[in-house]
């Protein structure tokens, strides 16, 4: 009877596997303690009573859903802010490297580079703004009250910030291509290429993180209701 209840609880908490594993272990110990303390009646009846006191697995999972989603959305927004900062450092390192090596864009490409650069700047600052706003919308107080009201907005801001950052990285890659065009690919090109790979990896990680967040939210939506 207890294993069946724990399976149902794990299924209800499937929006957060790590949490489900932890909660099921805690609940199992609790139920075993309750059955052991209820020695006057037979064990099956004691287990039945202990499980009845816990209530429906879905009702319990619903209480976990708000906090779990808020925590993951906050972590996603924090990751965006950190990766945006890392991208900023990578861009600055590249620019510094170009000035040290005296690499310049060829005059033919300068007008195109200006357009790409302005798109890059706008996309980058939009991602900064949305990432910070997304993080601030879910204050730690929301964890105390498990209030999921701003969750959708934060998820939307996280998605838009990731999109804007991806655009910024694409334009960075274009600018790096323009910068390196016509120059011999030697050891000096290693730093710009390395920083570009780091930026792409950072955005890829954010994309995956966002995907997990949206999957969790979708899985928990049925529990939380409209």
């Amino acid at each position, binding site marked *: 009877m207890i294993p069946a209840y724990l399976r149902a609880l794990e299924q209800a908490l499937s929006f957060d596997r790590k*949490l489900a594993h932890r909660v099921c*272990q*805690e609940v*199992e*110990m*609790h139920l075993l303690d309750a059955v052991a303390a209820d020695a006057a009646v037979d064990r099956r009846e004691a287990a039945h009573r202990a499980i009845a006191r*816990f209530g*429906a697995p879905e009702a319990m999972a619903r209480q*976990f859903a708000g906090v779990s989603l808020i925590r993951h959305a906050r972590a996603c927004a924090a990751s965006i802010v950190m990766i945006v900062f890392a991208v900023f450092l990578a861009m600055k390192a590249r620019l510094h490297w170009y000035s040290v090596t005296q690499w310049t864009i060829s005059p033919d490409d300068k007008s195109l580079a200006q357009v790409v650069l302005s798109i890059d700047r706008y996309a980058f600052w939009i991602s900064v703004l949305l990432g910070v706003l997304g993080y601030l919308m879910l204050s730690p107080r929301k964890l105390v009250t*498990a209030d999921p009201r701003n969750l959708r907005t934060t998820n939307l801001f996280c998605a838009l910030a990731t999109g804007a950052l991806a655009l910024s990285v694409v334009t960075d890659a274009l600018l790096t291509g323009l910068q390196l065009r016509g120059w011999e690919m030697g050891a000096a090109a290693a730093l710009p290429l390395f920083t570009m790979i780091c930026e792409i990896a950072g955005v890829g990680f954010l994309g995956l993180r966002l995907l997990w967040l949206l999957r969790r939210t979708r899985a928990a939506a049925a529990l939380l209701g409209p």
Partner: protein
Amino acid sequence: MQGMDRERRKPPLDTMVLAALAAGPAHGYAIIEDIKRSSGERFALPEGTLYPTLHRLEQAGLLSSRWVPAPAARRRRVYALTKPGKRALIEHGPAWQGIASVIAVIDGLLGPASARRKRA
């Protein structure tokens, strides 16, 4: 009274759980039993509500938790108050004591003595 107003907006369960942990770290089952014993078996905290509350308070930084070994190669999750948790309890405890004394007065007015007065 302002403190009491603020307290009325806060879930009493949070303060109850924090107070149950004031004596020292404990696992979920022990918290339930402690609350039941303290209320003279009159109040039984719903088990299905306790664990989400513990998790929520932990995420909010008011509690910390760790696994400790239990018999039969199992583990128990033991919860303890953190510094902010102790601060929250010190802050909110007196307001709840105020509410409790008001309830005691109301209970007294509506209780057997009041019924005797009406009969007289």
